[in-house]
């Protein structure tokens, strides 16, 4: 210990928050000393004793990690057509008939994909309809074999898929490699198990396939969302028309190659690329029996309106503004890890991101300080570097949205903490992780989904107030609770209006665990037994 019993001569760390002078000594929950001698000496500044001459460190310039790029090379075609009826359509050319998908980390074009027209969608739906009788007549064990084969092939090509996913979406390779692709394989494995056991999922009732499914997925977890949609549909004997998001179509198209490799019968899965117009064509096609959509609440409302009055079944998984509640009796260092995972995972582009942090008043200062320190250690940069924690924002449009909210938050009176000072690459779409303090529940940043690495920190005093604030939102997708007290967890979980409540963890996914929302976060569940319900008629 150097300079024991006295404060260091200068501010002890560079606080980027002007409102937080570096007075670590006032942290409330760690002042349990109880020894008069040291308490007294801690308060009285003494004559400075020299710290020892620091030993020369091998890291004189700081511990800068050398670049650790992922070296797997992925072949990408220049142009892609649609995958319809087990074959590829000729790739469209021309200004309106195709569009570029770019790497958001360097703004370079990866490939051109075709803009799906009404004709393309019609062909895909007809192919799915034609494939339906044979697919649902297939013995369930045979359907299971196809799902197993898909899962195994995804595992075999996991590294390639992870790299492609990171290139197309901007997410760090660490996440696509360790989270996205393993979960994709797990979803197919899990549903392979259900294919011949459906009668046990719905006791006393006979499930039959729902028919042709039109499935529209977002850009934040491109291949994982495809798996969430396709695996239960195939297990239940339905056929699919899938539209990946326009900014991230490449892994879905790569999945089509895998479907070819495993000899999936033509027409069982059809993949049509395109923007919102293609999505609208799928939703409005009379040959579609069920629409499954994951995306924004705005679009979800339009789809709900479009399918109202038709026989089409609908499940929606929409936006969120999930509450993350930290009680004073939580393990705070681990809670801070949970907060980081909750909001900065996938650049915050997660529908269930814990974007509203509610901290009990007595530990607010300590949690904020620790969050600030942890924020500083996050590494933002090249998604293909294995040491990157936060990658690129998916698109210029999304970055503009995030920046709009950052400006709005400050205008409304919240204080922005930008403790992270990672060096950003010269091109690409980047937003350093950050958080707002002094946020009021009425602020726009506390009410609207930002879909970026931006956290709103608020406080509460009592348990009732925490529940009231957590539920005070149009959304209800997920919530997190941190406390060491088991009875508190169980009580609060019942009172939170959220489809998923994580206790002492956050953003954990498993194919056996149902996922879905309350209120404007949508309806229907994905994963688990509950997820099968959306793909059968009883």
């Amino acid at each position, binding site marked *: *210990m*150097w*300079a*024991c*019993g*006295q*404060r*260091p001569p200068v*501010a*002890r*760390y*560079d606080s980027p928050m002007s409102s937080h002078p570096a007075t*670590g*000594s006032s*942290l409330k*929950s*760690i002042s*349990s*000393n*109880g020894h008069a*001698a*040291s308490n007294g*000496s*801690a308060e009285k500044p*003494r*004559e400075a*004793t*020299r*710290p*020892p001459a*620091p*030993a*020369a*460190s*091998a*890291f*004189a*310039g700081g*511990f800068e*990690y*050398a670049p*650790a790029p992922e070296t797997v090379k992925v072949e990408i075609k220049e142009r892609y057509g649609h995958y319809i009826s087990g074959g590829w359509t000729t790739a469209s050319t021309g200004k309106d008939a195709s569009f570029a998908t770019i790497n958001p980390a360097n703004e370079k074009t990866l490939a051109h994909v075709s803009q799906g027209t009404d004709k393309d969608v019609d062909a895909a739906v007809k192919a799915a309809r034609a494939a339906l009788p044979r697919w649902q007549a297939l013995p369930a064990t045979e359907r299971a074999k196809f799902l197993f084969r898909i899962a195994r092939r995804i595992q075999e090509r996991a590294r390639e898929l992870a790299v492609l996913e990171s290139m197309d979406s901007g997410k760090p390779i660490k996440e696509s490699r360790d989270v996205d692709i393993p979960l994709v394989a797990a979803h197919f494995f899990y549903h392979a198990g259900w294919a011949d056991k459906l009668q046990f999922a719905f006791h006393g009732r006979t499930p039959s396939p729902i028919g042709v499914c039109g499935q529209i997925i977002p850009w934040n977890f491109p291949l994982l969302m495809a798996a969430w949609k396709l695996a239960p549909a195939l297990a239940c004997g339905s056929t699919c028309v899938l539209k990946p998001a326009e900014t991230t179509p490449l892994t879905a198209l790569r999945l089509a190659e895998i479907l070819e490799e495993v000899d999936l019968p033509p027409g069982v899965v059809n993949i049509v690329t395109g923007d919102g117009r293609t999505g609208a064509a799928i939703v409005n096609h009379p040959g579609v029996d069920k629409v499954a959509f994951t995306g924004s609440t705005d679009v979800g409302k339009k789809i709900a309106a479009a399918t109202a009055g038709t026989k089409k079944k609908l499940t929606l998984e929409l936006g969120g503004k999930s509450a993350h509640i930290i009680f004073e009796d*939580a*393990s*705070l*260092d*681990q*809670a801070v*890890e*949970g907060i980081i995972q909750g909001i900065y995972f996938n650049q915050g582009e997660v529908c269930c991101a814990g974007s509203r942090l509610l901290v009990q008043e007595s530990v607010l200062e300590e949690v904020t*300080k620790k969050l600030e*320190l*942890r924020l*500083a*250690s996050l590494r933002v940069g090249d998604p293909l570097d*294995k*040491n990157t924690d936060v990658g690129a924002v998916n698109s210029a449009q999304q970055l503009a949205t995030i920046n709009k909210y950052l400006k709005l938050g400050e205008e409304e009176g919240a204080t922005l903490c930008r*403790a992270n000072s990672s060096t950003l690459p010269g091109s690409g779409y980047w937003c350093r992780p950050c958080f707002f303090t002094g946020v009021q529940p009425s602020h726009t940043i506390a009410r609207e989904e930002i879909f970026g690495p931006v956290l709103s920190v608020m406080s509460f005093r009592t348990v009732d107030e925490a529940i009231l604030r957590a539920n005070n939102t149009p959304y209800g997708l997920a919530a997190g609770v941190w406390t060491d007290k088991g009875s508190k967890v169980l009580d609060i979980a019942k009172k939170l209006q959220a489809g998923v409540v994580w206790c*002492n*963890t956050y953003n954990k996914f498993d194919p056996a665990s149902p996922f879905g929302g309350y209120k404007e976060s949508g309806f229907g569940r994905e994963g688990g037994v509950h997820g099968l319900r959306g793909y059968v008629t009883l």
Partner: protein
Amino acid sequence: MARFAPCSGLRLSLYNARMPTVDAVMAAERAASFTKRSIKTHTKRAALELALSMLDLTTLEGKDSPEKARSLCRKAVRPFPSDEQVLGKRLPSCGAVCVYPSLVETCVRELGDAATRNVKIASVATGFPSGQYPLEVRLDDVRRAVAAGADEIDMVISRGTFLAGGYDVVAEEIRATKRACQRGDGSYAHLKVILETGELETLDNVRKASDIAIRAMHDVIASGMGGTGVAAVHGHNVDFIKTSTGKVQPAATMPVTLVMLEAIRDWYLETGCVVGMKPAGGIRSAKQAVHYLVMVHETMGPLKVPGFETSNGNPWLTPDYFRFGASTLCNDILRQLVRLKTGKYVAGYDFSEA
């Protein structure tokens, strides 16, 4: 005020009040995340050289001989005598040798006196490794090791007393041990408090024991400064908390070290005092050592402690505040350094044993 019940004399421990708890699942997850960092080329080389300089080269066997202690000292001073030919540069010495008290004098003769030696002499004491001796015997053990010339004392806490809830007793024993570290000239030998985390079992206990040890050591130095200004005269005093004796499994693990680092970090935030950290036992490979340094960097780096600009504001990335207690780690570090330079793995027998 009326009293309704006779006073039972029950004493509530102050240490029970608002002690931080640890969530074991998340702590393990965070610790595992450091092992996923990919440390390459020049960063790896720098990390390995730093780890070498942080080694407490250790021998703690009943059969230890003066000759073994002497060769340990030589190895610590110059871990790889042909470093200049093979690596093109002189490697740093190890941080310290760590021996039983009976061998301290041998080490002093081999390494030279305190003012000149650049490898410190650490001695285990207080009835190491069990600590199952009367306090006076343990303190005498410490005084003798200090008198023999030890720079650093590695003490063990009474785990039985701790697990029985005698936190105040444990704290008082640590204070007594620290006082026993005082030399004739008023200066103190540095103290490392071994928590023996393998016997504490839970991370909650690890955190509690860390907090008790840090505060108890601080009490002695703070009162010393108040009384005679000894610390000011002596210059500085560095105390450590340490995971294990190496005699109990599991010894050092990454979650345990993370929790102890968090206790050190919180103490720094609260008081501005810097306490050292020593994981010991079970760290055998260079790769593990690099993972530990990644953990130190990411956990402590953002603190930016003033006065430590040479290590980018991180005292724990210097041998003054972070040590590895290990014996086989040294040669694996050397092996990896040679491979980084030459691209070839050399045989284990190309390096001298201790």
